[in-house]
């Protein structure tokens, strides 16, 4: 494309470090979160390698505890939570709304630097003793163990502010910066998903903030709020923690669903089925998410009545989730489906998320949860939702918007091979863990009984296939930056506003203020069978 775009208009390191452009901040977030994912992935590979034999393979038990804790903390706080909203969302949300930027560009940059500061603090724990509490920091163990727990809890506090700032920005942007003519029901569904995510970020994150702050004060000043010796209550920590962290699960999955809602209509060239149902189901998930935290504590001694209520409310989440899945499938019905990389990942998402979602119901049921609690079944379930769901959706979004972000097309053939490897590798790694868990393999254990070894080996080999697939993704995406072809403004035939500007967009997004007079998925009608026959005849 001709003319200056946001990547080329100004040059030099300073022009990036002090940028207020949401696109550049999004790109900086993208590389940072991908780096975090790479690090978390290396830790995951180490965990899997250690577990290939029932006894010690390459690290001792203490190191193993630190490795799985850091894997969880890095993946949750440094990758999944910021990845879609702060990286992809930052880039495309203002474009989708026809705005020049987010409402508070300086707050946006502050959010990025808080993320970097939090990331440095969290990773500094590697050299200051590590932490072995698991990413959940349960008391009283977390208040009595040594290592770098103080540093990591402060890192989580700082990262929470980063997440809150993104949420505030997105809500204000959605309210005040929509293009003329874009009413609430002409907004792309990605924006609805981001809006629902932002609600949770704003309402839940402060509670995590105060929780980790109290944990920090407990360790430094011995305030005793979670310490039964002094008269405190350790289960209170679990309530506080899950009051944030269960809604946070939806901070992770709603953005993934938001991407799928964009990709499926475009690659089916069909208006989305049930626009309002999908839009409101996002908000419904956000609402219900605040009422289900107790399902993490079925075996923590909470009352049977409370457990039964939490179990019932947990089942409610399945309703809006299923509404989405059925609407996506209905959108594809009689569409003109093109199986390009974003769509392949979207369909992968449907399959894997269905498994992840349904196994969640097993865990939400009181009787089965007692058996499955803290086993590999739980590990497999949340990896199906978080990785099979959110991460695969992230890949769909990355492939979908990559041409817009960097102005280059990637190799479609390589993308297909990689997607197949990711699908096979992922299922080999985690389906086996469902079986392990239902047979009683506890999570976070360093050693295990010899009869579990075959499935552990399958899981580890699966992780190698998965890693190979992801390395291929990294390879062709990075290669595309140096090679042609350049991307056209609208490579996929999308109808939303980001495809109406150049690839990559100019610094102020649009050369002329876009005006909206139709919905985001009003594709031209497909030809009917008679028309096809008539045309070929």
């Amino acid at each position, binding site marked *: 494309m001709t003319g200056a775009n946001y990547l080329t208009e100004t040059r030099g390191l300073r022009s990036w470090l002090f940028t207020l452009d949401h696109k550049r901040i999004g790109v900086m977030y993208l590389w940072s979160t991908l780096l975090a994912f790479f690090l978390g992935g290396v830790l995951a590979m180490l965990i899997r390698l250690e577990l290939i034999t029932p006894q010690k393979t390459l690290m001792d038990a203490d190191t193993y505890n630190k490795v799985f804790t850091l894997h969880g903390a890095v993946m949750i706080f440094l990758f999944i939570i910021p990845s879609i909203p702060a990286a992809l969302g930052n880039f495309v949300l203002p474009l989708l709304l026809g705005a020049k930027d987010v409402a508070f560009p300086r*707050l946006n940059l502050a959010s990025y630097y808080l993320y970097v500061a939090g990331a440095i603090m969290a990773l500094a724990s590697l050299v200051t003793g590590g932490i072995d509490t698991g990413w959940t920091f349960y008391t009283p163990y977390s208040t009595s163990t040594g290592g770098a727990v103080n540093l990591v809890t402060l890192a989580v506090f700082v990262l929470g502010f980063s997440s*809150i700032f993104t949420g*505030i920005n997105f809500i204000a942007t959605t309210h*005040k910066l929509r293009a003329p003519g874009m009413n609430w029901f002409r907004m792309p569904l990605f924006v609805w998903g981001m809006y629902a995510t932002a609600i949770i970020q704003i309402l839940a994150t*402060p509670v995590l903030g*105060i929780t980790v702050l109290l944990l920090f004060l407990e360790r430094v*000043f011995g305030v005793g709020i979670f310490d039964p010796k002094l008269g405190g209550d350790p289960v*209170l920590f679990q309530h*506080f923690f899950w009051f944030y962290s269960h809604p946070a699960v939806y901070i992770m999955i709603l953005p993934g669903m938001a991407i799928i809602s964009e990709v499926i209509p475009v690659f089916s060239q069909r208006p989305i089925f049930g626009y309002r149902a999908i839009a409101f189901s996002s908000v419904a998930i956000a609402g219900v998410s605040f009422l289900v935290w107790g399902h993490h504590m079925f075996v923590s001694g909470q009352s049977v009545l409370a457990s039964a209520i939490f179990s019932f409310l947990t089942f409610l989440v399945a309703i809006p989730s299923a509404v989405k899945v059925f609407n996506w499938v209905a959108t594809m019905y009689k569409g003109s489906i093109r199986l390009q990389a974003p769509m392949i990942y979207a369909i992968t998402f449907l399959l894997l998320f269905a498994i992840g979602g349904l196994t969640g119901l097993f865990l939400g049921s009181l009787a089965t949860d007692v058996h499955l609690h803290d086993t590999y079944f739980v590990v497999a379930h949340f990896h199906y939702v978080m990785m099979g769901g959110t991460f695969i959706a992230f890949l769909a979004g990355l492939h979908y918007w990559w041409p817009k972000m960097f102005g280059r097309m990637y190799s479609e053939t390589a993308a297909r091979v990689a997607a197949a490897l990711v699908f096979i590798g992922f299922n080999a790694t985690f389906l086996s863990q469902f079986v392990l868990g239902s047979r009683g393999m506890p999570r976070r254990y360093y050693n295990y009984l010899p009869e579990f070894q075959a499935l552990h080996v399958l899981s580890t080999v699966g992780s190698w296939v998965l890693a190979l697939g992801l390395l291929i993704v990294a390879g062709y995406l990075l290669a595309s930056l140096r090679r042609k072809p350049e991307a056209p403004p609208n490579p996929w035939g999308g109808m939303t506003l980001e495809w109406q500007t150049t690839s990559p967009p*100019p610094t102020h997004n649009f050369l002329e203020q876009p005006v909206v007079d139709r919905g985001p998925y009003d594709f031209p009608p497909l030809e009917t069978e008679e028309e096809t026959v008539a045309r070929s005849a």
Partner: protein
Amino acid sequence: MSTPQATAESQAHAPFLQHHFHEPVQQAEAAKIGMWLFLVTEILLFGGLFTGYGILRMLHPDAFHHGHTYLDRWLGALNTVVLLVSSFTMAMAVHSARTGERKRLVRFLLATLALAAVFLGVKYVEYSHKFHEGLLPGRFYSHKGDPVPGVHMFFSLYFVMTGLHGLHVVAGMVTIGWLLRRALRGHFSPAYYNPVEIAGLYWHLVDMIWIYLFPLLYLIS
């Protein structure tokens, strides 16, 4: 790019209009939404502490009752009045900014700043008295002769809650100081005063949280 001429023209009318907004009203409304959302996060931050307070008070009702007798309720009441008056002066500052009375704006901001300092001064007197008596949080509690066990839990919460609130007062003072600087430079006018307005919202929240802290900590009966 958007026409530089039009941008320059709107800049002349509204000197603090950022490029991505069409008009000052839109910018001011966005800022207000942003501040209200931030206040929601503040309420939830303190909400965690209030919940913790409720649970621990339920577990140790006698200790909380006895602990509160070590606080000076007159100093607490004095601070409540100080903060309420400061909320009034802040509201008057916003009003003066809206009507474009620069001198009054500066005076009311100064008054708010002074009242905030009085609040922290009183808090200092209270804290040093507690330190002297050994009425410290959790593990560091060294006061002797309590008729009931567990009073240290009351002081854990007392220090965490008033400490976090005190930090918010300090943050408010920094913000008001920044407003004062901008007011003295003549940045504010009836067409542009939303920084004063949203800082005012924040200050009222700091005041409101104290309104809840005062009875919960000083007036247990």
